[in-house]
């Protein structure tokens, strides 16, 4: 199962369908992955998230579901690709540099939430 993965556009579709399953009028907003145009997500997690989106709509007072996806550890390590593009559109030389970014974590989305059910696994590395 660990090798099975969901296409990024399929994830958006599945998340929206799960949010509207009980009440089709429910608004579903997904944000945080805007910078990823392509990619594959772990299918096991996608299934759980679909189930959890549906679960959150079981409260009849929920009119909108927000699905926010951020790095678990919000000091993220990025590669900077600096390319010099020539007249013919080709890149003869590129420089790679690393860049760290600190950005708001889950606390900023949860500070006024009454009940937080944290189902994430521990952060200890796999042994």
């Amino acid at each position: 199962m660990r090798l099975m993965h969901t296409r990024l556009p399929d994830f958006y579709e599945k998340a929206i369908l799960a949010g509207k399953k009980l009440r089709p009028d429910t608004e579903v907003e997904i944000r945080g992955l805007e910078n990823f145009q392509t990619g594959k997500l772990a299918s096991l997690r996608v299934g759980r998230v679909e189930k959890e989106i549906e679960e959150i709509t079981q409260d009849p007072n929920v009119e909108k579901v927000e699905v926010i996806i951020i790095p678990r550890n919000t000091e993220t390590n990025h590669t900077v690709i600096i390319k010099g593009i020539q007249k013919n559109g080709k890149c003869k030389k590129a420089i790679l540099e690393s860049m760290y970014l600190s950005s708001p974590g889950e606390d900023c989305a949860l500070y006024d939430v009454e009940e937080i059910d944290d189902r994430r696994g521990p952060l200890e590395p796999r042994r």
Partner: protein
Amino acid sequence: MKLKYRLVPQGAADGIVPINLAFIDKQDIDEAGLTYKEACAMVGRDFKNDPVTINVIDQAAVTVTSDGIMNDGAVVAFACADYGKINKDFGVMSISEMPYSEALMAEEPHMKQWNTEHYCGRRLYRGPSPEDRKPLESHNEHMTMTGRITNNNTGSEMMNVVEMTEILALFTGQMEIMKGGDLLVGTAGPDVSVGIGMVVRERRGRIFGWNYGAGKTAHNSGIYAKTVKSDYPAIAADKKIVAEYTLRALDIGMVPGLHLGCSPVVLSIAKAYGKPIALDNIEEAAWVELESIGITREKLSAPTKPMRREEILAHADEILPGMETAKKYKASEICHIRYAENQG
């Protein structure tokens, strides 16, 4: 139960300080019978809606600033709280004591300062161990984070990542806050911006590790080094205090560029004191950064009459480069004593 702490509130020093900065004395935590984590949580709960950084300071211990100068006191834990809470994974980090060893003394020549009468026999804390850093062990900075706030580089750079404000709290300044001493608060400016990159090679340094030695620049960003941190607000100790610690290192034969980082402050004091500077050991990339703020090989080589120790301390304000715009404050002018209550 009440726990005493010191607070430099957001807006202090004529509006320069952008973030609430709390400091707890390790001795007060010990007397209260609390762990560092429990103490930081108590202080964090004192801020219902606001973010705050929390540093635990052991005034009886010693630490080393990034340019290799030993100082009284040490950060032994650092944390961030927001809306009264501390993030369970990343919100607090404690620092393990570093034991004395002959191997350490042989590998890191600047640590000979630890053998002097000023520091001998005192506990040493620098940066966190890999175990202390879990689960952030693979990441760049020695950092804690909760909500809007991060507390970086073992409690010396505090950021609000939503408002995108930041302050540099140099360790000697933190100790003046603890002691009720003398501070400089202002904008870092080019000299401080360049100086931050002139580091020594250390295992488990507060900010840097083994990658960059004396005479090198960790910034390695040429003429841009003077701008990378120049617009930050900064809290530092009064220059005479920084001069005293640096003179102690020079007095036992520590050489800038060889044993000590070639920061503008260290170079300027060594030059005024007539002490040797390892000019040939300063790498070209570091010279580019130093020359961008007017510190050249020619100026450092020019013959001058050495000043006495007392003269340097008396004229520290003129000799030491530093912040671009800074104002002197008594710690009591910007810092309040507060008490956090244990709410069970």
